[in-house]
Every structure is written in structure tokens, then in C-alpha cells.
């Protein structure tokens, strides 16, 4: 089915490969979205699909986010699983009536007696390069508020492929959040079909001194300081959250019970967020085990500004993340040399990113 390819592929390629495989396996799966068939193919993620599966199954849409979300629901109730894609999560805010008032509670509202809500919604979130207030919002906490939705936010190409496969099979609505800055990251991805649980966080590294929980682009930021943390003799446990709704309580609680310390890094705003939810969970269930107050590293409660001059102060970078974690252990550092993730400029993830979005 698949021509031989390199074991290592990008996040976007993993997504593309997954959609391809799932559309082969499930002849009823329908995929639509604005830009899905345009020359750029949603950053390449929908490349080759319309050519292979035809315009009935892979189609371009009018700028009608709300109706299209309801249309997706109707399609699914009529027996056709749906994958929708939005180039920015911000655009999808127009669809909240359909998402919240219908999709999220359809199964409950009719006690399972209407059709199946097999709807997956890919939302790309971003940052930097002047994305500004309305093209950058990482809204995982918003989506995670509502019973009935599942919310996943993969970090690696491997997880992206397996989680998307599971999402497309799941008889529940799934919000699938992709960070634009992860799109070009490379990882080992088997070419075969595989599934990853939508309800399990991933322990990337075992340790006993502190639990570091990161979401999305914060995960490579932590990976970037692994060596430094080890240099300071911090035996940390690192969890990639992956699942925002439902939260994998067990993995988090077990870890914090063991370490007694937790730092949470999230790409969303600070208040009423995934990070605050985790802190409250930790306080509730690990109160007696805590040796230090929980620490959060998030976006401030400020919209993202557009200016290159301002975003410099807006995001956390490996350097101050390290500083914050070390301070939990009362280690003070002055200026240490860490290369910020992988670029000269703070507003791009790497040389590959040339804008415009």
C-alpha cells in the first residue's frame, strides 16, 4: 500500500499518512475543511488526498464554520465519520454553538438513541511570527471544559499518527490540537496503522525528584533542557500530557505522590486553564505528599501581541524555564548558555519557518 519511506518523518507527514490510511480502511470517512484542497494543502497535511479519494470524500468548503460543524454532525449521524480541519483554532470559535450545544452533548442528550457522533476536528494552534491576538490562541482548556468532548494535543509525529487514528475511530467527538511549531519536527513513525489511547498521558522519562508535566510545544522546550537538569542532579520525571480531556489522573497523581513536587508547562493562558486544573487535582489528591507548592509556567493572561518586540517578553523560553525549575530546588543560576530551542529568532521554531503563518 505504501512505498518505502524513511523511518523518520515530520509531524505533518505523520498526519497525512494517518488520514490516508484511515480513509483507505474506512470507505465512509469524509474529510473537509477550508484549504484542504488548495495548493498549500493545510501545511501539506492533506496532500494527495483528493487525488486519491475524490472530491466527494475530500472537499473544500465555504467560510461557514458553524454550519459546517453541524453538517459534520449530520453526516456522522447519517453514517459517515467526519474529519474536519481548521487552519487556526481561532476560526473555529464561530462554531461554538454546534460544538457545545450539539456535538458535545448529543450522545447524552438523546441517551445514545440518535446516531453516532464520530467527528474529529483538527485545529491548528500557533504562536510567533506576528500571529497576534487572534491567530495564536491555544484553547485546550476551553474545549476541555465541556463534558462529552475528548481533547488531545500530541507532541511527536509518532503520537500524532496514533492519536489521530484513534480519534477517527472513536464514537465520540474529538478535538485534535496541532501546534504549528511542531509541524516540522521529525520522529520515528512506523508506516503501519496503529492506535494510541486518547486517555493516557505519556511518561517520557522516569525520575523521583520532581514531576514535570508539559503540553504541546512546551514538551520540546523541556527536552531541550534535559541535559542541564541532569547536570544539576535533578532526577526529574517528565510527563507529556497529550490528553487534556479526560485528564489522565492516574498517571499524574501517581507521579506527584512519588515526587512531591510538580511543575506544569502549558501553551494556554494562565487562568482557568489546564494548568490550574492540574494544580487543583494535585492539591486534592496529593495534598499530603507535596513538598513544594505546585508551579505553573504558562502564557500570561494577556492576548498575544503581534510585534516582534513584544513577543520577546510574552513566551517562556528554555532559559527561564530552567531557572524556574532550579529555583524549586533552591539552586540559583546566573546566565547560563542554552540555545533556545533551535533558532536565532524567538518568534520562529526554526530556520524552516518563513511565515506567513
Amino acid at each position, binding site marked *: 500500500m505504501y512505498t518505502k519511506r524513511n523511518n523518520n518523518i515530520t509531524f505533518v507527514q505523520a498526519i497525512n499518512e494517518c488520514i490516508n490510511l484511515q480513509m483507505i480502511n474506512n470507505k465512509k470517512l469524509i474529510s473537509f475543511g477550508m484549504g484542504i484542497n488548495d495548493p498549500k494543502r493545510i501545511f501539506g497535511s492533506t496532500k494527495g488526498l483528493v487525488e486519491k479519494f475524490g472530491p466527494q470524500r475530500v472537499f473544500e468548503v*465555504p467560510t461557514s464554520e*458553524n454550519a459546517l460543524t453541524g*453538517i459534520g454532525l449530520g453526516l456522522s449521524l*447519517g453514517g*459517515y465519520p467526519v474529519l474536519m480541519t481548521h487552519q487556526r483554532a481561532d476560526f473555529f470559535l464561530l462554531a461554538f454553538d454546534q460544538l457545545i*450545544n450539539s456535538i458535545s452533548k448529543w450522545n447524552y442528550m438523546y441517551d445514545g438513541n440518535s446516531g453516532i457522533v464520530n467527528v474529529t476536528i483538527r485545529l491548528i494552534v500557533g504562536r510567533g511570527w506576528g500571529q497576534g491576538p487572534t491567530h495564536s490562541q491555544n484553547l485546550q482548556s476551553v474545549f476541555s471544559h465541556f463534558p462529552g468532548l475528548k481533547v488531545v494535543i500530541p507532541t511527536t509525529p509518532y503520537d500524532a499518527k496514533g492519536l489521530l487514528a484513534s480519534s477517527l475511530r472513536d464514537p465520540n467527538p474529538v478535538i485534535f490540537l496541532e501546534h504549528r511549531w511542531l509541524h516540522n519536527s521529525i520522529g520515528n513513525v512506523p508506516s503501519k496503522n496503529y492506535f494510541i489511547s486518547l486517555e493516557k498521558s505519556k511518561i517520557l522519562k522516569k525520575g523521583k525528584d520532581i514531576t514535570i508535566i508539559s503540553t504541546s510545544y512546551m514538551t520540546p522546550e523541556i527536552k531541550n533542557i534535559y541535559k542541564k537538569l541532569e547536570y544539576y542532579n535533578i532526577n526529574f520525571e517528565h510527563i507529556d500530557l497529550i490528553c487534556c480531556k479526560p485528564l489522565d489522573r492516574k498517571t499524574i497523581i501517581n507521579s506527584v505522590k512519588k515526587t512531591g513536587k510538580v511543575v506544569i508547562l502549558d501553551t494556554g493562558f494562565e487562568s482557568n486553564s489546564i494548568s490550574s486544573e492540574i494544580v487543583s487535582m494535585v492539591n486534592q489528591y496529593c495534598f499530603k505528599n507535596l513538598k513544594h507548592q505546585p508551579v505553573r509556567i504558562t502564557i500570561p493572561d494577556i492576548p498575544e501581541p503581534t510585534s516582534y518586540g513584544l513577543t520577546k517578553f510574552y513566551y517562556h523560553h528554555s532559559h527561564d524555564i530552567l531557572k524556574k525549575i532550579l529555583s524549586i530546588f533552591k539552586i540559583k543560576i546566573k546566565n547560563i548558555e542554552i540555545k533556545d530551542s533551535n533558532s536565532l529568532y524567538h518568534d520562529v521554531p526554526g530556520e524552516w519557518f518563513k511565515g506567513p503563518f
Partner: protein
Amino acid sequence: MATTTGLSLNQKLKIFETCSLIRHVESEISRRYEKGKMRCPVHLSIGQEGVPAALSLILNPKDYAVSTHRAHAHFISKGGSIKKMIAEIYGKSTGCSGGKGGSMHLVDKSKGFMGSSSIVGNSIPIGVGLGLAIKLKKSKNLSVIYLGDAAVETGVFFESINFSVLKNLPVVFICENNLYSVYTSLKSRQPRNRKIYKMVKAHGLRSYFFDGSNPFSYFKKLEKILEKSRRKSEPCFIEFSTYRYLEHCGPFNDDNLDYRPKKELLKWKKKDPYLNLKKKLEKNNQQKNLIKKIEKKVYKIIDESFLFAEKSNFPLKRNLASNVYKKK
């Protein structure tokens, strides 16, 4: 009369039967509501029976339908289980939605009634999606979307019309224009000289208007219109004028509030779909007997349905959290 409308007696009786069923189910809800056992908002269709009565004869269980907050009549018209509907309004475990949805969230998948929404405009795109599913299946079915005159003011309505024309979907928009959104007249909501069906026509689909109160008068035309959409798998829009007799929400008459001109009310009461059909059919003595029989059957269904609801149990505590997610 029979010759001008082209309806057989059998068709007339069937239309009347649905009309009677809707009228009496709704009236019984209204009568019993004060007892406090139906503990959810109800939007009754008394006065608006004509359109769903006519459609009940044209649609089949494989056709889909979705509706609004005022869904009882549409559900009945589609053949939905009245027992389960009443039980749902009573909040019982035997209700069509297990007591979780109430009057505004009715479903009977076996009859193609896929759901109704309490949010104005919300079910419109869902019906369009069902229409797309029909198109993909290449089956000769329709997806019927019931909406009120206020839904025409939502953005999602236009998005949905556009998409159904773009993709040429077998979707039938049924707009029941009862002149009001809660207490607010159409005059305060839409430009005075606007005709909804004409505005819709500009979007590129066949669009029609009928006085909804006399289904015998438009049945044949309606049948043809829908037949064309079915055959050609294409959308159409039909606006019906109609009028609700009771308050927007609840079992009572609210004419004391004076938000509707007395003359207007009187005019529409004269056009009472149920009473007029009955009167027409009862002109003939033999038919009078048939009507009696039909109504006896209707009363029986209603008695049984309310008894069923009254006797059913409330859902158990463990059902509170069930079905938040569908198990694989």
C-alpha cells in the same frame, strides 16, 4: 371539493388523523401540565397542525427530519412513538431520550426523526449534513428541516442554505411562519415588505409559499414539490403561514398580555386547521362515522401514552452519568 384538491378520501382521512393526533396530544399536555408532573418547558403546536399533518403522508421512515424547540407535532408527524415522547416530557426512563432531553430533545431513529434542538437555528445544519449523507448513499430520501420564522434571522440559516445549494442536497426546509418569536412580532425583526420565501429564492433554490392552515388545499402541490426534490436530489424551501393559539412556552393562553392584535388572533382562529378539516369531512354522514372512529383511536393512543408515562419509573441514579461518552 374533492375534485379541486385531487385528494382521495383515504388521503384526507389520514391527514385528518395526524392533525387530530397532534391537536389532542398537545391539548392533553396543556390540560395536565398544571399537575406538575411534566417538569420541563413545553412549546405546543396547537393551531400549527396543518403542515406536519400534510407532511406525514409524504415522508417515509427512511427520510430524515430534525426540528426545533417546538418539536412535538413534527415528531408525531414523522411517526415517532407517542408513548416515548410523553414519557420523555415526564422525565421518565422510558422516554425517547431516557429523560435526559425533555420536550425539546426528541428522537426516534427508527422513524428517521434524528433530533430537535432548543437553540434557534441549531438543527438546521445538522439536517443539511443528513442530506449530504443521503446524497453520498445515493438513496432517494429527503432530509426535512423544520424551522420557525426567527431561525431565518440566524447566520447559520444562510450558511446552511448556501451549502445545500452548493452541493445540491436533497434537503427540504420547512419554515413555519407563525409571525412571532416569543412575544416579538415579525414586524420588529424583519423588514416590513420582506417575504421570507422570496428572499430565500435568491439563494438559488426552489422556494414556495402556502397558507399552512388548510392542508387539503396545498397537499397535492406539496407532494409534487417534494417529489421533485426527491427525484432530482435537490433542495427546496417552503414557507407556510401559521399561528400558534397558546403562549409561546407553556400550557396556557396568554392573550391577556396583549402582544398580538385581537383581530389577528380571530382571523387565525377562523382558519383552525383541525376544526376546519373536521367540519369539511363531517359534512357527509358516512364520513362523520369514520371521523368518530379515527378520534376514538386517537384518544386511545393518548390515554395509553399518558398512562405509560405515569407508570414508568424515573431513571436510576446510575443513569445520571451514563452516555456522557459513547462506549466503544
